[in-house]
């Protein structure tokens, strides 16, 4: 396959391929972090996760339209504003959904699956009614398109670098919040033993609401970031939901580190296989190996050690 290429060509292609693997990794991490919090920490199977992401994308679209009216220099910096707005809007909707729907279902975790699936259908139709059935095009500032030419042969996509940066920043933020803040301690306490956490004075209801809101907010940020690489339409969220659950379940539901490790494993496997095989075949093999590994290790890659 590589006979006709020179060594330097091959080196640069592999460098670029390694880089696309890393981009895929960042995409998976972004998709999965919000769900890892909601599913991993709270045990809520949130089928509407993709729709929360797309909400973030639509917020980005609206912000880009609003900044389009302003002077050009401002348009160049709209993206950070859009991401913050996406976090707040998706988080607010998350808090509302938790209050109206999810908190009634904590004792029936499987029912959250149906309830949130219904919610995802409602949200999709809502987007369709408000924004139209067609995808909307989110205009990017020029500096965010195109590629950085590192050498003659190695080009690195700018939006890929940005997605990676966002993924790293959010992972660190979530890590700090979960393991260094008092809120994180409360969340973990509630997860491990709700009754006991309540008994020592933690407001479990408030903790749950905040946790769900943060998870949805992160989904919104992810959606906002994905406007750089993907489509924004009423049903685009469905494109991500399977991969998202795959990453979270494979990683071991209650472990953030596991989520990141699993995102890395799956993205690298898929990216390498895609290069050597055809696209559909790569997907088949990736899914197959995940199935086999989960059969051998049902708790996922990393699991919390709990006394059962």
């Amino acid at each position, binding site marked *: 396959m590589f006979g006709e290429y020179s060594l330097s060509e091959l080196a640069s292609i592999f460098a670029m391929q390694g880089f696309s693997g890393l981009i895929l990794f960042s995409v998976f991490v972004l998709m999965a972090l919000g769900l890892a919090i909601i599913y991993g920490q709270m045990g809520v199977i949130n089928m509407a996760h993709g729709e929360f992401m797309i909400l973030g994308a639509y917020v980005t679209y609206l912000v880009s339209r609003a900044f389009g009216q302003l002077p050009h220099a401002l348009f160049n910096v709209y993206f950070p504003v859009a991401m913050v707005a996406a976090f707040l809007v998706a988080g607010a909707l998350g808090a509302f959904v938790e209050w109206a729907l999810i908190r009634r279902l904590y004792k029936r975790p499987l029912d959250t699956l149906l309830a949130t699936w219904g919610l995802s259908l409602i949200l999709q139709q809502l987007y369709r009614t408000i924004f139209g059935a067609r995808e909307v095009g989110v*205009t990017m500032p020029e500096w965010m398109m195109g590629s950085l030419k590192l050498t003659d042969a190695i*080009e690195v996509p700018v939006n*890929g670098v940005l997605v990676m940066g966002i993924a790293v920043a959010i992972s660190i933020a979530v890590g700090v919040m979960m393991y260094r803040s008092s809120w994180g301690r409360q969340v973990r306490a509630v997860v491990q033993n709700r009754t006991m956490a309540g008994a020592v004075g933690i407001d479990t209801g408030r903790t749950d609401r905040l946790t769900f809101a943060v998870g949805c907010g992160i989904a919104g940020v992810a959606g906002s970031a994905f406007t750089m*690489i993907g489509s924004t339409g009423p*049903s685009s969220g469905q494109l991500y939901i399977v991969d998202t659950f795959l990453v979270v379940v494979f990683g071991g539901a209650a472990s953030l580190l596991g989520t990141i490790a699993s995102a890395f494993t799956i993205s690298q496997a898929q990216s390498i296989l*895609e290069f050597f095989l055809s696209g559909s075949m790569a997907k088949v093999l990736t899914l197959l190996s995940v199935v086999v590994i989960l059969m051998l290790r049902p708790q996922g890659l990393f699991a919390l050690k709990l006394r059962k």
Partner: protein
Amino acid sequence: MTDETFRPSRRAMMFGGAALGAALFMPKNLRAQDFPTAKINTTGLNVTDKEATVGILHSVTGTMAISEIGSVQAEKLAIEQINAQGGVLGRQIRFIQEDGASDWPTFAEKARKLLVNDKVPAVMGCWTSASRKAVLPVFEQNNGLLYYPTFYEGLEESPNVFYTGQEATQQIIAGLDWVTKTKGAKTFYLLGSDYIWPRTSNKIARKHIEDKLGLKVVGEEYYPLGHTQFNSVINKIKLRKPDVIYAVVVGGSNVSFYKQLIAAGIDPAKEKPIILTISVTEDEIRGIGGENVKGAYACMKYFQSIDNPANKDFVAAFRKMWGQDMVIGDVTQAAYLGPWLWKMAVEKAGSFDVDKVRAASPGLEMTNAPEGVIKIHKNHHLWSKTRVGKALENGQYEVVFETKDLIEPNPFPAGYQ
């Protein structure tokens, strides 16, 4: 009769205050009383002394709604224009609209409802091949009539369907010839979404490239529908350095594909390589963003920018009815042809009976369709021209090439199966 009766421009001209001028072009109005219902409707169809009720069957909810809504709008426009001209055999067209909901069994169920309960003489409908395959047995069993608008993979010829879009060979071969002749392309990379239409199209493309043109296909790849990560294949493309990327990617994947192409430093406008697609109409560009596809070439039979009076009137009427920011893609125009072709066939046959309409159809010619002249072939497809358009930043195509003659539809190309 056929030429005179087809005047989509009439309504627009009347609104333009040119009523007097338009009156000169008024078609000879066919009066309903000259065609007694008992004579023209011998099979119990939903046709009365005043009205004929047809069916519209598309998805207006679910994933396919994105694509199918344009077709619904075009069909309603055509029906309104026909009614403004006096209808079909003096009867106003009414329609019953059913929602296929992007679900193929639902399509079959609704088709049965339209044919058996509503007894419609014709249905304008379906978009994906999957939905057409689902309703096909229903139409054949109940002897219905379907006008199907989408360009598709061919390999089908039902007596109960008229295909107003292009079949694969019509769309593909002219484009490949053009890109080799004018751009000197020698090597091709075929890329598509993983289902029947892209695979069949690429099969035809490969056969033509290798056997007829004697050139080389350096790669062929398919990705699942809805795939959003194209970085790996883009790297592969960079490695193989093809002259042309032949892209048959559909739906939301398109957005990811073009955005990531640009991000990886492959700018379609630089034509290194040239991007040639058969799946991106003006509709899709709205989602992809004109700045991401400008410079790519598309090969199909209709572009909104085609410069002829009939098309200008059509675009104006469409926007008047559905909004000024509407764009019109290939399939939308093909959907617009359905009601007109049915009207022409009914009036030629002097009957609404499906068998007579079918028999009257082959040979019908429409000289002022928005896309230009078209003709119904005896295999129920249309003779049509194929054009190559270059995508502009504003989301429109600039027509850079059109075939001299109408291309004969050939749904069963020898050796391509």
